[in-house]
């Protein structure tokens, strides 16, 4: 398919500084549709900021973000979400006083544009989709638990479920497995991989766990002090001297 080679995300000259601290400087990045890619780098390299700029969490200082050919730079967050970019946060960002079920249903109703409905009882809506997504993310047994008291690992799963509910074209995962047991980590990443294979969901994630990075990403980019210093297949990056010196050398 021609479509599979199409560039989904194209970032050019992206820069951001907070006060006098430059966090990202002139980052250029391309991501093809259907890719599983990882951004790696030491703490403070700018990985989360990179995600924050793509999703509209922070305003871009300079540079452009193009998604599916459209310039989405500095769009409001909800419009970027609607355009097809979903995001799971590093620190789980859920609805603590709603049940797990209600959390997921809320995100699904938002995706289905039903949230302006003031007459229908929410309790009867989106049952099937909500249950399916709970099952997919392994949260079915916790469906009536108030989300605020879920375990850290389950919160991360819920975080992922909320992001998936948006039926995104591209999924940004900021350390998706932080706080999970190694078993949960494996399950979660396998699920992400399956989604990529089955529905062609494009995935961009950050991660510190070397086994996750090299086990799942097909493209790696190394971010170091706000600039991209290396990019390529996992093998290429593993051999890249600069990448080794700056980041991988510490851990491999």
């Amino acid at each position, binding site marked *: 398919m021609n479509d599979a080679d199409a560039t989904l995300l194209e970032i050019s000259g992206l820069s951001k500084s907070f006060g006098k601290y430059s966090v990202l400087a002139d980052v250029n990045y391309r991501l093809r549709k259907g890719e599983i890619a990882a951004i790696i780098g030491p703490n403070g390299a700018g990985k989360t900021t990179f995600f924050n700029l793509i999703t509209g969490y922070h305003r871009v200082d300079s540079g452009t973000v193009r998604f599916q050919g459209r310039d989405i730079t500095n769009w*409001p967050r909800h419009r970027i979400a609607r355009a097809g970019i979903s995001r799971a946060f590093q620190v789980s960002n*859920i*609805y603590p006083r709603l049940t797990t079920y209600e959390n997921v249903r809320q995100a699904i109703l938002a995706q289905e544009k039903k*949230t*302006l409905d003031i007459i229908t*009882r929410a*309790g009867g809506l989106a049952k099937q989709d909500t249950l399916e997504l709970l099952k997919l993310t392994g949260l079915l047994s916790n469906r009536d638990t108030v989300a605020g008291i879920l375990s850290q690992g389950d919160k991360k799963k819920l975080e992922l479920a909320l992001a998936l509910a948006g039926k995104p074209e591209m999924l940004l995962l900021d350390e998706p497995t932080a706080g999970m047991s190694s078993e949960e980590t494996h399950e979660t990443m396998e699920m992400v991989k399956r989604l990529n294979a089955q529905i062609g969901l494009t995935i961009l994630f950050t991660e510190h766990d070397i086994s996750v990075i090299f086990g799942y990403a097909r493209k790696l980019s190394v971010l170091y002090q706000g600039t991209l210093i290396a990019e390529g297949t996992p093998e290429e990056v593993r051999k890249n001297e600069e990448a080794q010196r700056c980041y991988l050398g510490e851990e491999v």
Partner: protein
Amino acid sequence: MKNKTLLAAALFLFAAVLPLIVTEFWVHVLTEILILGLFAASFNMIFGYMGQLSFGHAAYYGVGAYTTGLLMVKANVPLLVCLPLSMLSAGLCAAVLGYFCVKLRGIYFAILTMAFGQLVYYIIFQWYSFTGGDNGLQGIVPPEFLGKAANPYYFFTLIVVAIGMTALWIISESPFGYTMRAIRDNAERTEFIGINVQRYMHLNFIIAAVFAGLAGALWGPFNRSVAPDLTNWQHSGMPVFMTVMGGPFSFLGPLVGSTIYTLLMAFVTSFTEYWPLVSGVIIILVVLLMPGGFLGLLNEKFPFLMQKLSGAKETDEQGRQEP
């Protein structure tokens, strides 16, 4: 759901029978409980459901009261026509003022709502030729078919308030209502699931004002007059007190709060004029001893009872078994 419908029906029947038992004085008190209960419930759409404190909600109550008052006194418009018009005028007022309020959160939201409330108050207070200024409007009498006795107007109020509360209940249980809870819990996440949070907050602000306007519209004919005090910040504090007292996290909390507050006020003022002193002490005790309000306390002490009544475990029916 069944439990809740039954509870609502039982409450309505109870409220319908009460005036046949008590004296006229208490029928007046009951009418006041209902009107202020609707006012507080509309306030709680912003406080309990959306998670923002409005300290200027009386502005919309007052706009509703004055709309009905002016239409009845100056143009002889029938009360039944005045009610929807009061809702409309309060809603329009909130559409303009709320637009600015929802740009802010927390204490800043509270301060701006209060500032706008005071603005409405001063406009009504100063505009003698139109609103009667600090004299207010006198001679707002209920329509003839309700007569002059206390009971008919009470029943009329009961029906209108029941309709208003039902509408608020339906909204609070709708996808929109859950979006409000989502914004309360985590506004940031709500943006990232593709919802324009500010726009939704604005809509909810208008909805809350519309029902405050309806409550206000009932006040004039009940009290035979309206005064600018209805819109000032002290009056905005009333739904806050009532909701905190009754429990902001239950739909009926504000109504329970209005009942306790209004009954106490009627009781205490019958033998001392220091009601504000007493109410102040009560507020302090409520905040210190039962932060979830009266219903919150019940929920804590008798969780089984409250689950049955409020249907807190109703999520069961969401998927566990097909209806």
